[in-house]
Protein backbone atom coordinates (compact mmCIF):
# COMPACT_ATOMS: atom_id res chain seq x y z
CA UNK A 1 0.00 0.00 0.00
CA UNK A 2 2.46 2.70 -1.11
CA UNK A 3 0.22 5.65 -1.87
CA UNK A 4 0.85 9.30 -1.23
CA UNK A 5 -1.87 11.90 -0.68
CA UNK A 6 -1.94 15.11 -2.70
CA UNK A 7 -0.55 18.32 -1.22
CA UNK A 8 -4.07 19.68 -0.72
CA UNK A 9 -5.39 16.53 0.98
CA UNK A 10 -2.42 16.45 3.37
CA UNK A 11 -2.88 20.16 4.19
CA UNK A 12 -6.59 19.69 4.85
CA UNK A 13 -5.93 16.60 6.99
CA UNK A 14 -3.67 18.68 9.27
CA UNK A 15 -6.26 21.49 9.48
CA UNK A 16 -9.09 19.06 10.23
CA UNK A 17 -7.02 17.32 12.93
CA UNK A 18 -6.03 20.62 14.60
CA UNK A 19 -9.58 21.98 14.60
CA UNK A 20 -11.07 18.71 15.93
CA UNK A 21 -8.51 18.51 18.75
CA UNK A 22 -8.92 22.19 19.68
CA UNK A 23 -12.71 22.25 19.61
CA UNK A 24 -12.63 19.31 21.99
CA UNK A 25 -10.00 20.62 24.43
CA UNK A 26 -10.45 24.40 23.91
CA UNK A 27 -7.09 24.89 25.66
CA UNK A 28 -5.52 27.13 23.05
CA UNK A 29 -8.54 29.30 22.25
CA UNK A 30 -9.50 29.88 25.86
CA UNK A 31 -5.94 30.92 26.76
CA UNK A 32 -5.75 33.31 23.79
CA UNK A 33 -9.16 34.82 24.55
CA UNK A 34 -8.63 35.33 28.27
CA UNK A 35 -5.24 36.89 27.59
CA UNK A 36 -6.68 39.23 24.92
CA UNK A 37 -9.47 40.39 27.23
CA UNK A 38 -6.99 41.09 30.01
CA UNK A 39 -4.72 43.14 27.71
CA UNK A 40 -7.66 45.21 26.44
CA UNK A 41 -8.93 45.84 29.97
CA UNK A 42 -5.49 46.77 31.29
CA UNK A 43 -4.94 49.24 28.45
CA UNK A 44 -8.44 50.65 28.96
CA UNK A 45 -7.83 51.39 32.62
CA UNK A 46 -4.18 52.36 32.24
CA UNK A 47 -4.61 54.88 29.44
CA UNK A 48 -7.91 56.52 30.51
CA UNK A 49 -8.10 58.21 27.15
CA UNK A 50 -10.14 61.15 25.96
CA UNK A 51 -12.66 60.06 23.29
CA UNK A 52 -10.76 62.10 20.70
CA UNK A 53 -7.44 60.34 21.23
CA UNK A 54 -8.91 56.82 21.42
CA UNK A 55 -8.97 56.43 17.64
CA UNK A 56 -5.30 57.31 17.41
CA UNK A 57 -4.10 54.73 19.92
CA UNK A 58 -6.60 51.99 19.11
CA UNK A 59 -4.54 50.52 16.28
CA UNK A 60 -1.52 50.13 18.57
CA UNK A 61 -3.53 48.57 21.40
CA UNK A 62 -5.29 46.19 19.00
CA UNK A 63 -2.10 44.94 17.38
CA UNK A 64 -0.31 44.60 20.71
CA UNK A 65 -3.22 42.42 21.86
CA UNK A 66 -3.21 40.31 18.68
CA UNK A 67 0.57 39.90 18.69
CA UNK A 68 0.77 38.69 22.31
CA UNK A 69 -2.29 36.44 22.03
CA UNK A 70 -0.93 35.09 18.73
CA UNK A 71 2.40 34.16 20.33
CA UNK A 72 0.54 32.29 23.05
CA UNK A 73 -1.43 30.37 20.41
CA UNK A 74 1.62 29.59 18.28
CA UNK A 75 3.54 28.23 21.26
CA UNK A 76 0.64 26.04 22.32
CA UNK A 77 -0.09 24.82 18.81
CA UNK A 78 3.45 23.46 18.36
CA UNK A 79 3.77 22.24 21.96
CA UNK A 80 0.82 19.89 21.31
CA UNK A 81 2.79 18.40 18.42
CA UNK A 82 6.02 18.04 20.37
CA UNK A 83 4.85 16.77 23.75
CA UNK A 84 3.72 13.29 22.69
CA UNK A 85 6.08 12.93 19.74
CA UNK A 86 3.32 13.85 17.28
CA UNK A 87 5.66 16.13 15.33
CA UNK A 88 7.67 13.00 14.44
CA UNK A 89 4.40 11.33 13.44
CA UNK A 90 3.68 14.23 11.07
CA UNK A 91 7.21 14.23 9.67
CA UNK A 92 7.08 10.47 9.05
CA UNK A 93 4.14 10.85 6.67
CA UNK A 94 5.11 10.55 2.99
CA UNK A 95 3.90 14.04 2.15
CA UNK A 96 5.58 17.22 1.01
CA UNK A 97 6.49 18.74 4.38
CA UNK A 98 5.38 22.19 3.28
CA UNK A 99 1.84 20.73 3.27
CA UNK A 100 2.26 20.26 7.03
CA UNK A 101 3.44 23.88 7.32
CA UNK A 102 0.45 25.25 5.37
CA UNK A 103 -1.92 23.04 7.37
CA UNK A 104 -0.54 24.46 10.61
CA UNK A 105 -0.69 28.02 9.22
CA UNK A 106 -4.37 27.62 8.23
CA UNK A 107 -5.38 26.20 11.60
CA UNK A 108 -3.37 28.82 13.53
CA UNK A 109 -4.98 31.51 11.37
CA UNK A 110 -8.42 30.07 12.10
CA UNK A 111 -7.74 30.32 15.85
CA UNK A 112 -6.40 33.86 15.44
CA UNK A 113 -9.48 34.92 13.44
CA UNK A 114 -11.81 33.45 16.06
CA UNK A 115 -10.05 35.48 18.75
CA UNK A 116 -10.15 38.62 16.59
CA UNK A 117 -13.87 38.18 15.83
CA UNK A 118 -14.58 38.05 19.56
CA UNK A 119 -12.15 40.80 20.55
CA UNK A 120 -13.29 43.41 18.00
CA UNK A 121 -16.88 43.95 19.26
CA UNK A 122 -15.75 43.92 22.89
CA UNK A 123 -13.04 46.46 22.09
CA UNK A 124 -15.60 48.58 20.22
CA UNK A 125 -17.88 48.62 23.26
CA UNK A 126 -15.12 49.34 25.79
CA UNK A 127 -13.44 52.09 23.80
CA UNK A 128 -16.57 53.44 22.10
CA UNK A 129 -15.10 53.08 18.59
CA UNK A 130 -16.65 51.34 15.60
CA UNK A 131 -13.98 48.89 14.41
CA UNK A 132 -16.16 47.28 11.74
CA UNK A 133 -14.52 49.21 8.94
CA UNK A 134 -13.90 47.12 5.76
CA UNK A 135 -10.45 48.67 5.35
CA UNK A 136 -9.47 47.82 8.92
CA UNK A 137 -10.76 44.27 8.51
CA UNK A 138 -8.56 43.91 5.40
CA UNK A 139 -5.52 45.09 7.37
CA UNK A 140 -6.33 42.63 10.16
CA UNK A 141 -6.59 39.83 7.58
CA UNK A 142 -3.25 40.69 5.93
CA UNK A 143 -1.45 41.39 9.20
CA UNK A 144 -2.66 38.11 10.72
CA UNK A 145 -1.47 36.15 7.66
CA UNK A 146 1.99 37.71 7.90
CA UNK A 147 2.25 37.25 11.65
CA UNK A 148 1.02 33.65 11.68
CA UNK A 149 2.97 32.71 8.53
CA UNK A 150 6.31 33.70 10.06
CA UNK A 151 5.23 32.65 13.56
CA UNK A 152 4.39 29.09 12.51
CA UNK A 153 7.79 28.66 10.86
CA UNK A 154 9.64 30.03 13.88
CA UNK A 155 7.47 28.06 16.33
CA UNK A 156 8.46 24.87 14.45
CA UNK A 157 12.07 25.85 15.02
CA UNK A 158 11.66 26.96 18.65
CA UNK A 159 9.69 23.86 19.64
CA UNK A 160 12.89 21.78 19.39
CA UNK A 161 14.43 23.83 22.21
CA UNK A 162 13.86 23.34 25.94
CA UNK A 163 13.20 27.07 26.38
CA UNK A 164 10.63 27.26 23.57
CA UNK A 165 8.15 29.54 25.41
CA UNK A 166 10.86 32.18 25.81
CA UNK A 167 12.61 31.52 22.52
CA UNK A 168 9.62 32.06 20.23
CA UNK A 169 8.91 35.73 21.10
CA UNK A 170 12.64 36.49 21.05
CA UNK A 171 12.92 35.08 17.53
CA UNK A 172 9.55 36.26 16.28
CA UNK A 173 9.16 39.89 17.32
CA UNK A 174 12.27 41.28 15.57
CA UNK A 175 11.27 39.54 12.32
CA UNK A 176 7.62 40.66 12.40
CA UNK A 177 8.40 44.30 13.18
CA UNK A 178 7.63 45.29 9.53
CA UNK A 179 4.26 43.50 9.77
CA UNK A 180 3.32 45.12 13.07
CA UNK A 181 4.47 48.62 12.06
CA UNK A 182 2.67 48.43 8.70
CA UNK A 183 -0.46 46.97 10.26
CA UNK A 184 -0.56 49.66 12.97
CA UNK A 185 0.01 52.43 10.45
CA UNK A 186 -2.62 51.15 7.97
CA UNK A 187 -5.13 50.40 10.77
CA UNK A 188 -4.63 53.84 12.24
CA UNK A 189 -5.11 55.36 8.79
CA UNK A 190 -8.46 53.62 8.31
CA UNK A 191 -9.64 54.52 11.83
CA UNK A 192 -8.75 58.20 11.58
CA UNK A 193 -9.99 58.54 7.98
CA UNK A 194 -6.57 59.30 6.47
CA UNK A 195 -6.33 59.58 2.67
CA UNK A 196 -5.61 56.37 0.71
CA UNK A 197 -2.26 57.78 -0.44
CA UNK A 198 -1.12 57.51 3.19
CA UNK A 199 -2.63 54.07 3.76
CA UNK A 200 -1.47 52.33 0.57
CA UNK A 201 2.31 52.19 1.28
CA UNK A 202 1.97 50.16 4.54
CA UNK A 203 -0.76 48.04 2.94
CA UNK A 204 1.50 47.25 -0.02
CA UNK A 205 4.35 46.44 2.35
CA UNK A 206 2.10 43.96 4.17
CA UNK A 207 1.19 42.22 0.90
CA UNK A 208 4.82 42.00 -0.25
CA UNK A 209 6.01 40.82 3.18
CA UNK A 210 3.37 38.07 3.23
CA UNK A 211 4.33 36.84 -0.24
CA UNK A 212 8.06 36.83 0.50
CA UNK A 213 7.83 35.13 3.88
CA UNK A 214 5.29 32.51 2.82
CA UNK A 215 7.63 31.64 -0.09
CA UNK A 216 10.63 31.46 2.27
CA UNK A 217 8.68 29.24 4.68
CA UNK A 218 7.58 26.99 1.80
CA UNK A 219 11.21 26.51 0.76
CA UNK A 220 12.78 26.12 4.22
CA UNK A 221 10.25 24.30 6.41
CA UNK A 222 11.73 20.89 5.55
CA UNK A 223 15.19 21.95 6.78
CA UNK A 224 13.80 23.78 9.81
CA UNK A 225 12.01 20.74 11.24
CA UNK A 226 14.68 18.16 10.41
CA UNK A 227 17.55 17.57 12.84
Amino acid at each position, binding site marked *: *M*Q*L*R*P*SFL*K*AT*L*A*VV*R*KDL*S*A*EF*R*SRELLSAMLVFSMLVILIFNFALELEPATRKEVSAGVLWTTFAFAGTLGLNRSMA*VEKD*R*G*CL*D*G*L*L*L*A*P*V*DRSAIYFGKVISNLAFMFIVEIIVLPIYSMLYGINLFNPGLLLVILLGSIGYIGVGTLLASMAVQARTREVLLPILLFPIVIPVLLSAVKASSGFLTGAPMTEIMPPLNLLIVYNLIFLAIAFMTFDQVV*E*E
Partner: protein
Amino acid sequence: MIEVKKLVKRFGMKAVLRGLDFNVQPGEFVALLGPNGAGKTTFLRILASLSRPSLGDVNVAGYRLPNQAAQVRARLGVVSHLPLLYADLTAEENLDFYARMYGIPDAPSRMTEVLQMVGLEARRRDLVRTFSRGMQQRLAIGRAVLHDPEVMLFDEPYTGLDQDASSMLDEVLKSVAAQGRTVVMTSHDLARSEDLATRFDVLSRGVIVASASRESLGNANLLTFYKQALAA
Protein backbone atom coordinates in the same frame (compact mmCIF):
# COMPACT_ATOMS: atom_id res chain seq x y z
CA MET B 1 16.03 -4.28 2.67
CA ILE B 2 18.26 -1.96 4.73
CA GLU B 3 21.82 -1.17 3.64
CA VAL B 4 24.00 1.23 5.58
CA LYS B 5 27.62 1.92 4.71
CA LYS B 6 30.12 3.98 6.68
CA LEU B 7 27.43 6.05 8.36
CA VAL B 8 28.64 9.02 10.35
CA LYS B 9 26.43 11.35 12.36
CA ARG B 10 27.85 14.36 14.14
CA PHE B 11 26.13 16.84 16.41
CA GLY B 12 28.51 19.79 16.28
CA MET B 13 31.97 18.40 17.09
CA LYS B 14 30.61 15.23 18.70
CA ALA B 15 30.39 12.13 16.49
CA VAL B 16 27.58 9.84 17.68
CA LEU B 17 27.84 7.33 14.81
CA ARG B 18 31.39 6.65 13.58
CA GLY B 19 31.38 4.78 10.27
CA LEU B 20 28.58 2.33 11.03
CA ASP B 21 27.88 -0.58 8.61
CA PHE B 22 24.55 -2.39 8.86
CA ASN B 23 22.56 -4.71 6.57
CA VAL B 24 19.17 -6.29 7.06
CA GLN B 25 17.62 -8.88 4.74
CA PRO B 26 13.88 -8.85 3.95
CA GLY B 27 11.85 -10.54 6.71
CA GLU B 28 14.64 -10.37 9.32
CA PHE B 29 13.89 -9.20 12.87
CA VAL B 30 17.00 -7.49 14.18
CA ALA B 31 17.38 -6.51 17.82
CA LEU B 32 19.77 -3.59 18.11
CA LEU B 33 21.30 -3.73 21.58
CA GLY B 34 23.63 -1.34 23.31
CA PRO B 35 24.18 0.81 26.38
CA ASN B 36 22.68 4.30 26.81
CA GLY B 37 24.40 6.80 24.55
CA ALA B 38 25.57 4.16 22.07
CA GLY B 39 23.70 5.90 19.24
CA LYS B 40 20.75 3.51 18.82
CA THR B 41 18.03 6.16 18.72
CA THR B 42 20.12 8.46 16.50
CA PHE B 43 20.63 5.55 14.09
CA LEU B 44 16.92 4.71 14.01
CA ARG B 45 16.02 8.37 13.46
CA ILE B 46 18.32 8.43 10.43
CA LEU B 47 16.70 5.25 9.05
CA ALA B 48 13.31 6.90 9.62
CA SER B 49 14.43 10.02 7.68
CA LEU B 50 13.89 12.18 10.77
CA SER B 51 17.56 13.08 10.89
CA ARG B 52 20.13 13.56 8.11
CA PRO B 53 23.36 11.56 8.02
CA SER B 54 26.56 13.61 8.14
CA LEU B 55 28.37 11.10 5.90
CA GLY B 56 27.78 7.64 4.44
CA ASP B 57 25.19 5.76 2.39
CA VAL B 58 21.78 4.79 3.71
CA ASN B 59 19.33 2.75 1.61
CA VAL B 60 15.95 1.61 2.91
CA ALA B 61 13.55 -0.53 0.85
CA GLY B 62 15.57 0.26 -2.28
CA TYR B 63 15.51 4.05 -1.83
CA ARG B 64 18.36 6.30 -0.84
CA LEU B 65 18.25 8.69 2.12
CA PRO B 66 17.92 11.61 2.37
CA ASN B 67 17.21 12.21 -1.34
CA GLN B 68 14.29 9.77 -1.62
CA ALA B 69 12.93 10.28 1.88
CA ALA B 70 9.26 10.45 0.86
CA GLN B 71 9.48 7.05 -0.88
CA VAL B 72 11.16 5.58 2.20
CA ARG B 73 8.55 7.05 4.53
CA ALA B 74 5.74 5.47 2.51
CA ARG B 75 7.32 2.04 3.17
CA LEU B 76 8.22 2.56 6.81
CA GLY B 77 6.39 2.22 10.12
CA VAL B 78 7.92 3.68 13.29
CA VAL B 79 7.06 3.03 16.93
CA SER B 80 8.97 4.84 19.67
CA HIS B 81 8.57 5.12 23.43
CA LEU B 82 6.37 8.16 22.74
CA PRO B 83 2.97 7.23 21.29
CA LEU B 84 2.88 9.82 18.44
CA LEU B 85 -0.86 10.09 19.08
CA TYR B 86 -3.10 13.07 19.82
CA ALA B 87 -4.56 12.83 23.33
CA ASP B 88 -7.62 14.97 22.47
CA LEU B 89 -8.65 12.75 19.56
CA THR B 90 -10.27 9.33 19.77
CA ALA B 91 -8.44 6.18 18.67
CA GLU B 92 -10.50 6.22 15.48
CA GLU B 93 -9.82 9.91 14.79
CA ASN B 94 -6.08 9.39 15.27
CA LEU B 95 -6.04 6.51 12.80
CA ASP B 96 -8.26 8.45 10.39
CA PHE B 97 -5.82 11.37 10.47
CA TYR B 98 -2.84 9.13 9.71
CA ALA B 99 -4.84 7.29 7.02
CA ARG B 100 -5.36 10.65 5.30
CA MET B 101 -1.66 11.53 5.67
CA TYR B 102 -0.68 8.23 4.02
CA GLY B 103 -3.42 8.37 1.35
CA ILE B 104 -4.81 4.99 2.37
CA PRO B 105 -7.73 3.86 0.19
CA ASP B 106 -10.76 2.35 1.95
CA ALA B 107 -9.49 3.71 5.26
CA PRO B 108 -12.53 2.71 7.41
CA SER B 109 -12.11 -1.03 6.77
CA ARG B 110 -8.32 -0.84 7.20
CA MET B 111 -8.80 1.02 10.49
CA THR B 112 -11.19 -1.65 11.75
CA GLU B 113 -8.72 -4.37 10.73
CA VAL B 114 -5.87 -2.63 12.58
CA LEU B 115 -7.95 -1.91 15.70
CA GLN B 116 -8.91 -5.58 15.86
CA MET B 117 -5.26 -6.58 15.48
CA VAL B 118 -4.20 -4.46 18.47
CA GLY B 119 -7.29 -5.39 20.50
CA LEU B 120 -8.78 -1.90 20.72
CA GLU B 121 -11.88 -2.27 18.53
CA ALA B 122 -14.19 -1.80 21.55
CA ARG B 123 -12.40 1.44 22.53
CA ARG B 124 -12.28 3.01 19.06
CA ARG B 125 -14.47 6.00 20.03
CA ASP B 126 -12.67 6.74 23.30
CA LEU B 127 -10.24 9.61 23.67
CA VAL B 128 -6.61 8.53 23.67
CA ARG B 129 -6.05 10.51 26.89
CA THR B 130 -8.26 7.94 28.69
CA PHE B 131 -6.06 5.02 27.54
CA SER B 132 -3.48 3.32 29.74
CA ARG B 133 0.17 3.47 28.66
CA GLY B 134 -0.06 -0.09 27.32
CA MET B 135 -3.20 0.66 25.29
CA GLN B 136 -1.56 3.78 23.86
CA GLN B 137 1.45 1.74 22.82
CA ARG B 138 -0.78 -0.85 21.13
CA LEU B 139 -2.59 1.92 19.28
CA ALA B 140 0.82 3.38 18.34
CA ILE B 141 1.65 0.05 16.70
CA GLY B 142 -1.73 0.14 14.93
CA ARG B 143 -0.86 3.61 13.64
CA ALA B 144 2.53 2.40 12.45
CA VAL B 145 1.16 -0.61 10.50
CA LEU B 146 -1.87 1.23 9.10
CA HIS B 147 -0.26 1.74 5.68
CA ASP B 148 1.08 -1.84 5.63
CA PRO B 149 4.79 -0.90 5.67
CA GLU B 150 7.54 -3.25 4.52
CA VAL B 151 9.97 -2.07 7.21
CA MET B 152 9.18 -1.47 10.90
CA LEU B 153 11.41 0.41 13.33
CA PHE B 154 10.79 0.04 17.07
CA ASP B 155 12.70 2.35 19.41
CA GLU B 156 12.48 1.07 22.99
CA PRO B 157 8.79 0.13 22.63
CA TYR B 158 8.64 -1.40 26.14
CA THR B 159 9.62 1.79 27.98
CA GLY B 160 7.14 2.56 30.75
CA LEU B 161 5.04 -0.59 30.29
CA ASP B 162 4.10 -2.87 33.17
CA GLN B 163 4.43 -6.67 32.96
CA ASP B 164 0.91 -7.28 31.58
CA ALA B 165 1.18 -4.51 29.00
CA SER B 166 4.62 -5.79 27.94
CA SER B 167 3.27 -9.32 27.45
CA MET B 168 0.40 -7.94 25.37
CA LEU B 169 2.86 -5.88 23.33
CA ASP B 170 4.92 -9.07 22.77
CA GLU B 171 1.92 -10.68 21.10
CA VAL B 172 1.28 -7.65 18.89
CA LEU B 173 4.97 -7.50 17.91
CA LYS B 174 4.97 -11.21 17.07
CA SER B 175 1.93 -10.78 14.84
CA VAL B 176 3.59 -7.77 13.13
CA ALA B 177 6.75 -9.81 12.48
CA ALA B 178 4.77 -12.86 11.38
CA GLN B 179 3.37 -10.84 8.48
CA GLY B 180 6.81 -10.97 6.83
CA ARG B 181 7.88 -7.43 7.67
CA THR B 182 11.49 -6.45 8.17
CA VAL B 183 11.90 -5.25 11.75
CA VAL B 184 14.64 -3.37 13.57
CA MET B 185 14.08 -2.92 17.30
CA THR B 186 16.21 -1.22 19.93
CA SER B 187 15.67 -2.42 23.47
CA HIS B 188 17.35 -2.68 26.84
CA ASP B 189 15.25 -5.73 27.61
CA LEU B 190 17.46 -8.62 26.52
CA ALA B 191 14.94 -11.30 27.51
CA ARG B 192 12.23 -9.85 25.27
CA SER B 193 14.68 -9.25 22.43
CA GLU B 194 15.84 -12.87 22.71
CA ASP B 195 12.25 -14.03 22.44
CA LEU B 196 11.40 -11.97 19.37
CA ALA B 197 14.46 -11.32 17.19
CA THR B 198 16.15 -13.50 14.58
CA ARG B 199 19.42 -11.54 14.80
CA PHE B 200 21.18 -9.57 17.51
CA ASP B 201 23.52 -6.64 16.79
CA VAL B 202 25.39 -4.77 19.49
CA LEU B 203 25.99 -1.06 18.95
CA SER B 204 28.65 0.59 21.06
CA ARG B 205 30.42 3.95 20.69
CA GLY B 206 28.79 4.53 17.31
CA VAL B 207 29.65 1.26 15.54
CA ILE B 208 28.30 -2.29 15.42
CA VAL B 209 30.75 -4.28 17.56
CA ALA B 210 29.12 -7.73 17.30
CA SER B 211 26.39 -9.51 15.39
CA ALA B 212 24.90 -12.97 15.83
CA SER B 213 21.92 -14.77 14.38
CA ARG B 214 19.60 -16.77 16.62
CA GLU B 215 21.02 -19.98 15.06
CA SER B 216 24.67 -19.00 15.59
CA LEU B 217 23.92 -18.06 19.18
CA GLY B 218 22.63 -21.60 19.76
CA ASN B 219 22.25 -22.37 23.44
CA ALA B 220 24.55 -19.54 24.45
CA ASN B 221 23.05 -16.87 26.65
CA LEU B 222 22.26 -13.53 24.98
CA LEU B 223 23.42 -11.68 28.09
CA THR B 224 26.85 -13.37 27.88
CA PHE B 225 27.10 -12.51 24.17
CA TYR B 226 26.12 -8.91 24.91
CA LYS B 227 28.61 -8.51 27.77
CA GLN B 228 31.43 -10.05 25.70
CA ALA B 229 30.62 -7.75 22.78
CA LEU B 230 30.80 -4.65 24.98
CA ALA B 231 33.98 -5.82 26.69
CA ALA B 232 35.82 -6.48 23.42
